[in-house]
């Protein structure tokens, strides 16, 4: 038989479950560990898909003779004790690898092994809010900002003029808002 060592803690409304499955026997055993929490299993993920052996109900995999397997998952349910249980075990076949099941035979296995080629989040343009600063102003300031050298005297003067005018315009109260012709 196998022993299950468990620990569960709640953090930010999520239960984090840590499990150790120990097989003291002399033969490898296939083990089914089921979630007992009253909520979905959030399994560990590899390349965006559930790690090998995990499904909606828990984990199934092989523990080597005399070996241990560490497992962990999360769940949106409140912690209960024990959070998980071993529902069955059986003697594992000789050909079953102890730590990696179903290497590539499924689409998920392929993704896990080869890695998803999705573009990184940084590469995806965000839906942009309309920028309140006009493009010309933005690019002028941006160019000064990106440059490694300090602004020249003329540029510094220009910046100060802009700052003064921008401050003065922003300070005007709503009732004396200028007509479009006055703003230049």
């Amino acid at each position, binding site marked *: 038989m196998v022993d299950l060592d468990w620990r569960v803690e709640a953090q930010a409304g999520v239960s984090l479950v840590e499990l150790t499955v120990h097989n003291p026997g002399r033969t490898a055993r296939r083990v089914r560990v089921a979630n007992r929490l009253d909520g979905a299993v959030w399994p560990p993920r590899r390349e965006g898909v559930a790690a090998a052996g995990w499904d909606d109900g828990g984990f199934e995999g092989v523990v080597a003779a005399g070996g241990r397997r560490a497992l962990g998952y999360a769940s949106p349910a409140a912690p209960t004790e024990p959070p998980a249980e071993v529902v069955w075990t059986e003697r594992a076949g000789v050909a079953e690898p102890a730590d990696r099941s179903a290497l590539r035979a499924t*689409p998920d296995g392929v993704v896990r092994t080869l890695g998803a080629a999705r573009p990184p989040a940084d590469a995806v343009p965000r839906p942009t809010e309309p920028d309140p600063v006009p493009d010309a102003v933005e690019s002028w300031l941006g160019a000064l900002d990106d440059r490694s050298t300090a602004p020249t005297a003329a540029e510094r003067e220009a910046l100060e003029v802009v700052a003064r005018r921008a401050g003065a315009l922003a300070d005007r109260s709503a009732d004396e808002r200028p007509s479009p012709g006055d703003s230049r």
Partner: protein
Amino acid sequence: MILAIAGGKGGVGKSTVSLNLGAELDAVVVDADLSMADLPTARGPDLHDVLAGRADPVEAVREDGPVDLLPCGRTLAGARAGEVAALASALDAVESIYDRVVVDCPAGMAADVGVPLLAADAAVLVTSSREFALADAVRTRALARELDAGLAAVALNRTGREPPTETLRRALGARVVAVPDDGRVRRAQRQGRPVASLAPDSRPAARFVALAETVRTGTLTR
């Protein structure tokens, strides 16, 4: 039958071979190059929508073009949102209705190549006779083998006068069909059409017929 068109290297003409082979085999061509799609696009649901669970794969197939096509979206956001593992069942669904499916795979060796190879019954390797393209072809062949997609044929694309077909046949262990470099192929491709529709009597059109024939015999005898 699901036929994956792969090659590892980018820019060797996988999309061109897919479109022309799809036309010859009367198959649905699936543009599975999720982040750098190259085949014609169309309004309506595309493969990004299918992989994100927003559209049915069969309903996303367009039958109004010169070749039946399941187009792919062009946005990086769409490429990121989809589950590449879902591609396998999408290809199966299209095959169950249309019978023959040609998948234009992306470059590289990641899961977006592995999943179509897993779903495919056979693969066609596209390569050019450059050394670096050949190295990628050998790696892709190894991956196809591991995922149980037999090598139906090798398309040696954009060849010059004396293509090294025999050398390649020995190296890759499959029938090699050379397709000569020809401006008409590129022109047809830009219009999203097979070269046979533009220049039916041209040499490249004849070579794509030969490639289709090789694929047919290669997949039947296995």
